C-alpha cells in the first residue's frame, strides 16, 4: 500500500510526462482492440449474412466467387443458370424450398435483385432471424418493389414512392427502364447485411422491364408499355443463383454431389459456411498482418513508456537515495519502478478501452449505415486476453528500469557524492 502511495506521489511530480505516456499507451490499446473488434465483427457479419440456407446453387465458378456475388453482391459476376435447370433443382425430392436470385440491374447505385416472395419467408440472417418489414410488406403486383433499410434511409423513400430502375449497373450513359416505373410497397428493417442496400422486385418484373430488349439493345415498342407487359409470358429465362433449403441435413452432401455432377448444365452447389471458411483462409494472411501491426503499435507504446522511465532515472537518483536513506531496501526501489510501470500501463489500458467503447457507441450507427458492418458494442471475451497481454508487457517493461535503479541504488549507497 505504501508502495502504491509512493508511486502515486512520484507520478504526480511528473504528471505531464506520465499523462503523455498514459495517452500513448491508451492509443495503442485502442488500436489493438479496435483492429481485433473490426476483424471479429466483420467475420461475424459475413458469417451471419446468410443463415438457415443449406446450399447456394449457381453456375460453376469458384465457391467464394459464387458466394460473394450472389449474397454479398461483390466481385466478378458469375454466369447465369437457366430457369429450366432451376425448376429441376427445385423439384428434387430432397429440396424443401428454394429462393431464386437474379442480379444485373440497379437503382441509383443500389443493386436490384429479382426474387420470389419466398425470399421474405426463408431468408435468414444472424442467428436465424427472419426479415422484418419496417413498413409495408412483400411485393404483390408486377411493378411493386421492396427496398432495404439503407436504400430507404439514403434516398429517403417511403411507401408509395415511384422509382425507376437502371439497366445494368447504372451510370450516366445507362438506359433507364423509365417506361415501367415501380411503386415501393415495403421497407425492410435494418439487418446489417447486403439486403439493406438492395431493391427487391419479382423475377417476373425483371422479365417485364426487359421485354423490349433484344441482344442487349433496347428496341422501343417491341414489348409494349407497362400495361401490355402484364399480359405477356413473363416466365424467367435465367437466374443468377438460388438458395436451397433441404428437408434433412443428412442429404446435403448427396444433393451437393448431384448438383455438381448435373449433366445438362455446369453447376456449383456450395455450403455457405464452407465457402466462408475458404474466404477466411484466403484473407487470413492480411488479417494476421493487421494484427501484427497493431501489436507492434502496442510495443512501440511500451517502448515510449520505457524510454520515459529510463530517461527519468538519472534525474531521480536523488529520490532513490532519499528513499534508501529513510530505510527503503533496494528491492523496494525495484518494486517502485515496476509498480509505476504497471500503474501507467493499467491507466493506459483502461483509457484505451474506454476510448474504444466511446468510439463504438458514437460510430456504431454510422458504420452500419455506410459500410454495412455491424460493430458489437458489448465487450468481447477475447479482448480481456489482449488486455492481459498488454499488462504483462507493461510489467516486463517496468522490470528494466527497476533493475537498473536497483543496481544503481546499491552502488549509490556505497559511494560518497558531493
Amino acid at each position, binding site marked *: 500500500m505504501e508502495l502504491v502511495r509512493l508511486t502515486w506521489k512520484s507520478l504526480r511530480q511528473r504528471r505531464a510526462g506520465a499523462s503523455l505516456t498514459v495517452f500513448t499507451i491508451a492509443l495503442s490499446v485502442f488500436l489493438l482492440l479496435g483492429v481485433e473488434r473490426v476483424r471479429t465483427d466483420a467475420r461475424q457479419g459475413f*458469417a451471419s449474412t446468410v*443463415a438457415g440456407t*443449406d446450399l447456394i446453387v449457381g453456375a460453376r465458378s469458384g465457391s467464394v466467387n459464387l458466394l460473394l456475388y450472389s449474397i454479398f453482391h461483390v466481385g466478378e459476376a458469375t454466369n447465369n443458370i437457366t430457369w429450366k435447370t432451376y425448376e429441376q433443382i427445385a423439384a428434387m425430392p430432397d429440396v424443401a424450398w428454394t429462393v431464386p436470385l437474379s442480379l444485373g440491374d440497379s437503382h441509383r447505385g443500389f443493386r436490384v435483385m429479382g426474387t420470389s416472395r419466398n425470399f421474405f419467408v426463408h431468408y435468414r440472417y444472424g*442467428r436465424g432471424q427472419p426479415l422484418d418489414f419496417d413498413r409495408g410488406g412483400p411485393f404483390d403486383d408486377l411493378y411493386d418493389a421492396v427496398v432495404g433499410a439503407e436504400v430507404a434511409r439514403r434516398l429517403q423513400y417511403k411507401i408509395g414512392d415511384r422509382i425507376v430502375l437502371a439497366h445494368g449497373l447504372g451510370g450516366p450513359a445507362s438506359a433507364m427502364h423509365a417506361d415501367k416505373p415501380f411503386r415501393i410497397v415495403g421497407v425492410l428493417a435494418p439487418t446489417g447485411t447486403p439486403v439493406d442496400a438492395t431493391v427487391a422486385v419479382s423475377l417476373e418484373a425483371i422479365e417485364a422491364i426487359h421485354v423490349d430488349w433484344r441482344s442487349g439493345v433496347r428496341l422501343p415498342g417491341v414489348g409494349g408499355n407497362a400495361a401490355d407487359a402484364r399480359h405477356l409470358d413473363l416466365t424467367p429465362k435465367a437466374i443468377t443463383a438460388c438458395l436451397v433449403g433441404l428437408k*434433412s*441435413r*443428412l442429404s*446435403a*452432401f448427396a444433393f451437393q*454431389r448431384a448438383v*455438381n*455432377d448435373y*449433366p445438362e448444365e*455446369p453447376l456449383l452447389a456450395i*455450403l*455457405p*459456411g*464452407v465457402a466462408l*471458411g*475458404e474466404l477466411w483462409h484466403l484473407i487470413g494472411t492480411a488479417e494476421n498482418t493487421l494484427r501484427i501491426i497493431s501489436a507492434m503499435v502496442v510495443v512501440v507504446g511500451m517502448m515510449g513508456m520505457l524510454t520515459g522511465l529510463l530517461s527519468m532515472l538519472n534525474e531521480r537518483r536523488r529520490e532513490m537515495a532519499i528513499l534508501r536513506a529513510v530505510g527503503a531496501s533496494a528491492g523496494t526501489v525495484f518494486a517502485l519502478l515496476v509498480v509505476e510501470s504497471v500503474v501507467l500501463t493499467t491507466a493506459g489500458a483502461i483509457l484505451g478501452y474506454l476510448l474504444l467503447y466511446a468510439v463504438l457507441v458514437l460510430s456504431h450507427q454510422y458504420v452500419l449505415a455506410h459500410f454495412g458492418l455491424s460493430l458489437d458494442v458489448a465487450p468481447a471475451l477475447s479482448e480481456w486476453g489482449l488486455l492481459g497481454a498488454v499488462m504483462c508487457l507493461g510489467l516486463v517493461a517496468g522490470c528494466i528500469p527497476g533493475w537498473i535503479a536497483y543496481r544503481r541504488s546499491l552502488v549509490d549507497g556505497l559511494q560518497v557524492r558531493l
Partner: protein
Amino acid sequence: MRNSIAAFLLVASIAAASVRAQDVRQLGPHVHGQTRVQVVVDGDTLDVSLVIPGADAVGFEHPPAGPVEAAAYKNAVAKLRVSRRWLQPSAAAACVPVSVEVSPHGYGQDAVVGMHAELEAIYRFRCSHVSALDAIDVRLVDVFPATHTIVADVLLHDGALRQELDPGMVRIDLKP
C-alpha cells in the same frame, strides 16, 4: 510423399465419368495424399462419408491384376469397412455404427484407362448423447499411411464449416 504433392484436377467419380464420358466431359478434384471427409449431424444421427484416392488406399488406380493386387484391393476395402479402429466419435456421445457402405470407383467395370480411381465410404452412427458429440477422431493415417491431409466439411445444425487436418492432426472439431 510424391503423391501428396501431385494434385490432379481429375475424376470425381470414375463410375459417373465412364457412364457419361461420351456426352458429358467434367471431372472433379483428385489429389493424392488428400482425403475428403464430410460430416453431418442431424438429430441423433451422425453421417460421415469420405473419398480417399485409390493410390493412397490401395496403392494403384486400376482394376486389380493378379492375386497380389487383388489382395491389396480387398485389404483396403476391408479396412474401410471396419472403421472402429480409425474413426472414433466422442466416446461420451455413445455413437453406435448403424451402417457402412464402401463403394469403389474405377476398380471394376467402370474403370477407364488412364483415369484415376478412388474409394468412397459412408458411415452412419446413432448417438445416444448427441449433445456430447464434440469431435470425431479420424486416424486414417494409421491404416492408410499415404494419407497426408484430410479436408473435412462439417454440417451442423447452426451452419457449415471446413477444417483441414494437416499431418499429425486427427481431430475434427464439431463445436469450434
